[in-house]
């Protein structure tokens, strides 16, 4: 910091809560700052189950990535990857296929710096500092050049990220841009918060997040279906995310008693056929 002039423009504002660090807090992590924790506590006030939801979403991520590796996918583009806590995509994937490659993308400079530190000794994973809404910038980033081969099937992960893209930023267009850029046989994995079950509570949560660096937009089942146009959804389609290819047999008990309304989120994996 010593060489940094005080007047220099700063895109790292620790006074402003970042969803990536709030998410880490829900997961019990300490990669966060007072401002993040403060707003996260407010969010917990509006929706006390957020830690369980966060864990549930991690569990979905794990199941869906495992599924994708089983389908033979060995390239992953994880958009909005956030703070790289344990159980990240590259850990899951590498355990199953050590040669698979994973590119993380995030716009938060702190998340990016953290990921860089973590991935320092991991040649098969990289982090790109870019806004996932700008598919052109992401896909032409020099870090991806020669790393991902987009002429071969690639899995694009949009887990718990599209609900940070407001309608004014054309989320369908964002999805379409990645679909166009990837080869047939590529996959898209989505998990997305919904207002279908508890609209009142969702409004309160949205209100809290409007004070963060990334306000949230919860969508209906139909709206999320629309976003995934051009993909053939694999069974079971777009469903409550805790139900998507849930562990069988012999699962451990669900902390929220398997109540899908308390999770209020859908997930799906789609395949680009042609």
């Amino acid at each position, binding site marked *: *910091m010593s*060489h*940094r*002039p005080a*007047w*220099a*423009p*700063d*895109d*790292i504002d*620790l006074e402003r809560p970042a969803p990536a*660090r709030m998410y880490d807090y829900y997961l*019990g*992590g*300490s*990669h*966060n*700052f007072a401002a993040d924790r403060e707003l996260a506590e407010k969010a917990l006030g509006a929706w006390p189950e957020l*830690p*369980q939801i966060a*864990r549930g979403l*991690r*569990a979905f991520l*794990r199941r869906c990535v495992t599924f994708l590796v089983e389908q033979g996918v060995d390239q992953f583009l994880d958009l909005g990857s956030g*703070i790289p*806590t*344990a*159980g990240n995509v590259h*850990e*899951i994937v590498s355990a199953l296929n050590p040669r698979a490659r994973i590119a993380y993308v995030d716009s938060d*400079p*702190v*998340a*990016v*710096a*953290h990921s*860089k*530190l*973590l991935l320092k000794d991991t040649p098969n994973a990289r982090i790109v*500092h870019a806004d996932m809404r700008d598919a052109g910038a992401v896909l032409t980033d020099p870090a991806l050049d020669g790393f991902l081969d987009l002429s071969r099937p690639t899995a694009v992960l949009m887990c718990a990220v599209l609900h940070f893209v407001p309608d004014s930023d054309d989320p369908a267009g964002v999805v379409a841009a990645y679909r166009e850029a990837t080869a047939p046989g590529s996959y898209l994995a989505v998990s997305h918060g919904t207002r279908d079950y508890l609209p009142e509570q969702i409004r309160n949560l949205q209100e809290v997040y409007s004070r963060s660096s990334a306000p949230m937009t919860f969508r209906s089942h139909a709206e999320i279906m629309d976003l995934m146009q051009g993909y053939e959804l694999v069974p079971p389609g777009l469903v409550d995310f805790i139900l998507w290819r849930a*562990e069988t047999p*012999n*699962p*451990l*008990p669900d*902390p929220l008693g398997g109540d899908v309304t308390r999770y209020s989120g859908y997930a799906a994996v789609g395949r680009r056929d042609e």
Partner: protein
Amino acid sequence: MSDVSGIAGGLSAAWAAALSAASSSPMNAAETRAMVALLADWVADALVDPVTARKAGTAVGTALVDSHYTQPESLAASITVLSEHLPAGVGAAVRTALCAGLAAGYADALRERTRGEQEAIRIAVLDAHRTSEARFRAVFRSAPLGIGIADGAGRILEINEPLARMLGRDPRSVRGMEIRSLRLPTDPPGYWEQYDALLAGQRRQMTGEKLFPGLDGRDIWARMRASSIIGDNGRTALMIALFEDVTERRRMTERLRYQATHDPLTGLPNRTKLLEELTAILDGAVAENWATEARAGEERRVAVCFLDIDGFKAVNDTLGHDAGDQLLVEVAARIREAADPYGYPVGRLGGDEFVILLSDTDGPGTAIEVVERALDAIRGPLVLDGRELTVTASAGIVERSAVGARPSELLRAADITLYWAKSGGRDQWALFDPQRNARQVARYSLSQALPAALERGELFLEYQPIVCMNSQRIRALEALVRWNHPQRGLLGPGQFVPLAEETGTIVALGRWVLRRAVADAATWPRSEDGSPVVVSVNVAVRQVRDPGLVHEVRDTLAEFGLPAARLQLEITESAVMDTGESGRPAVERLRLLSGLGVRIAIDDFGTGYSNLSYLRRLPAHSLKIDGSFVKGLIPDPGEGGQEASEEPIVSGLITLARACGMTLTAEGVETAAQADKLRELGADHGQGFYYARPIPADKVADLLVSGFPDIARD
């Protein structure tokens, strides 16, 4: 011990369920179960004594955190499960030691983990800052633009290397300096007013172009754009200025401008530049006049002098254009040298025409002085292409009040005056004379108006009879052109024909007169005695030179059916003797005309210089002598009779005409006495008021039928 060895299985299942309800880890159910089974084994093996139990508890607490069970509920759930599933035989000390170890181990591990994660995120933030700063630094340092940042009080916070170079200062040395202290006298007007407004928050942006004295003495022109950043308190927090080096662009522009305003050969200002300067002088005078309310005679005065090399074309033609260019360069230098002591600008208008502008004159004196110096200097011998030669120049000077003068008007006046100097004999100057100019302008405008006047029918013909001295019968009528000018009234030929001859419109005018006269004459009846009446038409020297004249005459006669013998062309003595550009007299053409059967009269005979031997060979039929001879035939008694009678001369002219086989017509016969004398001397025809004044064309026929009622005839 045996009663506790079997506890692990039940403990393990309950523990996995409790943990998964309380918290979560990235592990799936199988992995969780495997991990918890291991922990349950550790516990089961450690229930021997408090020290061992404590150790195992510590290890389990650490393992839970390492397996990402970081939510405190994991600890609570674990303690609860252990309490419920430990065999009843396990002593209180061991139970307590196990739980204490678990709590302490968990807390220690979580603290370590938290520290590690906080350290990781802090490093990440530093790293992100560094990346961001590096990006910013790269922009700041490597930008080709000069960048300067100042605080809201106008103090410099930082400048980058390019701006430091423009300022000619070390980047560190300017930190904390007031921007205002960089003020330079060369800064454009309004620059610092804009800055003040920016600082005060009254404006957000400013632009300007200013000069920086560069480090190496090389001046740098920079185009500056600054904008302010407003802080939370609404005041200017930062000012950021970008400076672009536009020195080259300006130099280019200046070069282009120089090229556009200077003559490449002599390096002198060209017409554009001179007009600009002259306009500035005149505008300045007008502004001053307006401000001081100066009265007529007190205003500023200005002089414009045109100088032109005499016979420059000849130099160019004989010595070549390179020599001509050398001459121009030399003359330019001499004129400049002559004008320099006075500090007056010298320019080249084009060709061999130079100009000196003098402001603040007080009469033509200074201008004449400068011009004479210049003409003297030009006259000095010069070596051109190895040859020594002398050239001269002429000059036109116009000097007048600068108020109310227009640049183009002044230049034109100087040009006209130059022409006067040239036509006055070269190697001299002339001073503009407004009266002379006014006359010229009037004449010029008349000659310009003539072609249109012909078309509009403003010109018409009158006819003056030419009478046989003996029979008193009309033998011919001379066509005299009149101009019914809409503004100036009726104009006689003397007022516009010489002008038309000068400007060349005489050709069109002459053609019109010829056609009109021939057309009229074709309608005339024969004279009283039945003889055909001739129409006499004046032909100017330019017409005689025109190769088309013969055809024109023949065609006109044919068109109107007038016999050639009824047309007489009056050509002045000087026109007949004129050798024109061909160097040959007009005899050939007169012979052709005569060959058509047309009569030729030599007009104004005796007023010019004739080659008498040549006269004999002329195909002319008649000599016309000027009225001045007739007037002198009978001296005016009022003048004391000092003047000798012209009688012998008239008599001689008559004899000469006879000798050349021509008749003689006397013009300007005004009295009976003159008529009698002329008849006595043997003149053939007379013309003048005594016989008849010129009459309108439509009265000619009547006159020819009735004759002169008021003239007594023998």
